[in-house]
């Protein structure tokens, strides 16, 4: 659970606690398909990925965005999160271990809000980029 977080407590270059997820297994993709409603056979049928030329089964991009969301909401309380966007850079394959990192890149007060912005990344065990993203949060101030 994210601890209460005040604007005074966080600074540019502060790192998000690292989150390691996986290895990603077929069964997790099946569960995620059922939960999210995304039954694209690329994610659940081992043969289809080979057939369409992406070299086999890949994880849902949204599952990996979910890993990043877990890391983010474990650091910054969900209620303060205002924006969260990602680019899906690389494909996540079976048995890969996903490491999520992030940091604060900007901190300012603007139109009555205490705004922090930052970047987030997900990489596989070969350090290849899976996701590059950004977030914005509005934090309370210590009185």
């Amino acid at each position, binding site marked *: 659970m994210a601890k209460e977080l005040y604007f005074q407590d966080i600074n540019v270059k502060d790192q998000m606690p690292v989150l390691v997820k996986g290895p990603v297994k077929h069964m997790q993709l099946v569960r995620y398909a059922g939960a999210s409603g995304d039954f694209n056979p690329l994610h659940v049928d081992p043969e289809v990925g080979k057939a369409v030329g992406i070299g086999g089964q890949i994880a849902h991009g949204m599952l990996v965005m979910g890993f990043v969301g877990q890391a983010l909401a474990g650091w910054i*309380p969900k209620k303060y999160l205002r924006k969260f966007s990602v680019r899906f850079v690389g494909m996540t394959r079976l048995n890969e271990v996903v490491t999520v990192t992030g940091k604060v890149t900007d901190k300012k007060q603007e139109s009555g809000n205490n705004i922090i912005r930052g970047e987030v990344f997900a990489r596989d065990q070969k350090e290849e980029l899976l996701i590059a993203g950004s977030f914005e949060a509005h934090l309370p101030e210590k009185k």
Partner: protein
Amino acid sequence: MADRSKINHEFPPFTYEVERGKMRELVQAIGDDNPIFLDKEAAIKEGYKDIPAFPTFATVPMNWSNTLLSIISDLKINFAMVLHGEEGYEYLQEIYPGDVLTGKIRVVSIDEKAGKSGSMDLVKLETMYTNQRNEPVLKANALIVERK
């Protein structure tokens, strides 16, 4: 080949009732053990009215209302060649169990781009979600890539 005549087109709104069980299922499939997403008491203690929707929850109404599939076919996109390029959310209010969401999807743009393995169509979709009180709760921006 994505249908260029659909640029700026707004699809008919769809509705989705937010179910507690479905919220939990998504969190468990991702494997997050954060109590605010699993335990109502813990969420209330942290200042929420109930369990709040997980940051990526908006993918659930989109898929389970079969909206995405029908839009992809309306846009004449070959589903077998679809990749997800980008996803972005703006959180305007918490989404809670029992909320009834209405989603309105607009085609923002369709562009062609040369990629490493041939050309691709890039389709930008914007979805605005309101709740049963007609309050805007979330804006989603998706980039869908069709390989050709």
